[in-house]
């Protein structure tokens, strides 16, 4: 099923006037896509999920499930979650405390008045798939966090929902279990072939799980794309900062033309990069230069292509070294595999060469959007 959000908005009346929890969110998923809504807390990602589920009503825009309109503020249409046939896993799992695991999973089927036999069969199938057959008689209070999470997933997938909604389902698990469950969720999605909307604040989860990611910021979809796109070509400094660990270096600089070639000036230093054809749209101006730590190389000798930087600290990361440096009063990080820097002293001067093909340029003012 394809999910389509059309200029979706949700406005809350608060004591200080109205607040947009979601504003003009607009995208369409593919069939059976694993689509991630990513963003910091309070960005409106859970609101969007609740709107899709039918737990909240939009104040603007429409929601389509394939060719059927399930919610429209303008046309006053609002289908209930039941009518939409959605399944959802909540952050707190929301297991019914008075029911056994079996009854929790069977609950949606019993509400739908399915026969006892088919309920039994479906629950057993799901329990086997999630390997929780041995827990069917337990009450939620007797389960561990990971087991509860499985039960919640089981309850969601026991009937064939039109869409599968997951609201930070891994955030209550410990780190080890989270990685394992992530892999399971991915294979489960492959098996079930159901369009899945997954909400998380964890960019690692988002990048490893999602076919595509919508990064939300203050109720708006800042950027929608694959993990690679968000990583390599962020549309704004907000995306650049949010995606990637360590995050992208963002450095204020001035770009101008000298001797018919580009010159980048940072503080008192200037370098003359090899001109890139894609820079045609750039005009001489103040910019924010964004570059990933792995795209900065350390050169033996100073040249017209290098910035001089002071080494502040070295953090071994196992295979690589993370160098904290300062270029003309601006802090940056550099990733290098060269072990000779492991024992380098703070204060050492380094010659840094930027890979300008990988550089992103952002406006220095306003929303700091990408200018390429």
């Amino acid at each position, binding site marked *: 099923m394809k999910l389509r959000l059309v200029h979706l908005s949700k406005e809350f009346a608060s004591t200080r006037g109205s607040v947009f929890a979601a504003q003009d969110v607009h995208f369409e998923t593919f069939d059976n896509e694993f689509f991630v809504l990513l963003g910091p807390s309070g960005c409106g990602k859970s609101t969007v999920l609740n709107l899709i589920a039918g737990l909240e*009503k939009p*104040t603007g825009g429409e929601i389509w499930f394939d060719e059927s309109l399930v919610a429209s*503020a303008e046309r*006053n249409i*609002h289908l209930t979650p039941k009518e939409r046939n959605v399944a959802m896993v909540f952050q707190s799992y929301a297991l019914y405390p008075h029911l056994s695991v079996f009854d929790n999973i069977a609950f949606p089927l019993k509400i739908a008045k399915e026969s006892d036999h088919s309920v039994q069969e479906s629950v057993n199938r799901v329990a086997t798939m999630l390997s929780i057959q041995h827990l069917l008689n337990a009450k939620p209070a007797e389960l561990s966090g990971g087991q509860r999470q499985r039960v919640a997933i089981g309850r969601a997938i026991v009937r064939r929902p039109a869409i599968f909604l997951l609201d930070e389902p891994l955030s209550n698990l410990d780190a080890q279990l989270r990685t394992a469950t992530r892999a399971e969720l991915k294979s489960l999605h492959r098996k079930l072939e159901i369009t899945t909307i997954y909400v998380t604040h964890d960019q690692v989860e988002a990048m490893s799980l999602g076919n595509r990611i919508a990064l939300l910021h203050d109720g708006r979809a800042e950027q929608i794309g694959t993990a690679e796109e968000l990583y390599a070509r962020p549309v704004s400094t907000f995306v650049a900062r949010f995606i990637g660990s360590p995050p992208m270096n963002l450095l204020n600089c001035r770009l101008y033309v000298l001797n018919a070639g580009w010159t980048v000036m940072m503080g008192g230093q200037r370098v003359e990069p090899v001109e890139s054809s894609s820079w045609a749209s750039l005009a001489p101006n103040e910019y924010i230069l964004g570059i990933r730590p792995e795209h900065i190389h350390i050169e033996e000798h100073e040249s017209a292509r290098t910035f001089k930087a002071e080494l502040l600290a070295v953090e071994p990361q196992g295979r690589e070294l993370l160098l904290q440096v300062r270029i003309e009063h601006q802090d940056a990080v550099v990733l290098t595999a060269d072990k000779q820097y492991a024992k380098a002293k703070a204060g050492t001067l380094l010659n840094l060469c930027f890979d300008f093909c990988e550089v992103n340029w952002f406006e220095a003012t306003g929303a700091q959007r990408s200018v390429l």
Partner: protein
Amino acid sequence: MKGNHHKEIKESSLFLLPLALFVSAFILVPVIGTMIDSTFLDVAFLQKKFCGFDNYRWMIRNPGFWQSVRFTLLFVAVTVPLEMILGLMFALLLNEPTPARAILRAAVLVPWAIPAAVSARTWELIYNYNYGLANFIWRKLGISAEPINWLGSEFSAFASLVIADAWKTTPFVAIILLAGISAVPEELHRQAKVDGATLFQRFAHITLPLIKPALLVALIFRTIDALRIFDIIYVLTRGGPGGATTSLSLYGYNYFLIGDFGYGSAVSAILFGVALILSVTCMKSGRFSEEVK
């Protein structure tokens, strides 16, 4: 958007409907009916006739009415403070982690659980002139060899009712105050102890100010409850001796009993008015509603 909202409210109203029906049919409508009846000459076997405020006019000229007003107010003025003090004492005891706490908690519920009219029968026996427990203790204490006719004189009947009422309702006060006291953080007491405050200073400067809301709630509930006192008086003295212990409720009831519904309704309406004004005033005072939220 608007239409949807209305639909939702309509749906929610269905959940409130049974409550609204019952409260209206068996509380609100009867109260209004009583108000209306109070403006009628409505005596059994006579033609019902509108009479304006005649019932009220007769009431304020009737010494029996003023006697019951005096008794009721006096009863409230004596029982409520007594029950508040005893209740506070019990609550403090119930909050202490002594070995006897479980027993005390159980004991305090006993008077509360027994119907007032039933326990009043026991008090009747206790106050019995010849062989009641009260006179037994009175004699054993050696205050005087002469037994007292507890329910026979105006003063002792009043005192007897106060004691019986305090026994029945102090547990309720204690339970309400216990909730307030147990919510006082233990750290405050430890801190005060470190600061050198004595037991009584800690009570006066920490516990008492912090349980003010609970005290207020108990005070309101008890005052309104004492105003409508009926059960134990009906059983113990039936308003005697000589009408000295006739509460407003009993006074109104007596008129219903002889079939004068108009006058009885007027008396009831007065009592209702006082209770309503009291409860609305208290609810409007921010303290109470905040506490509830």
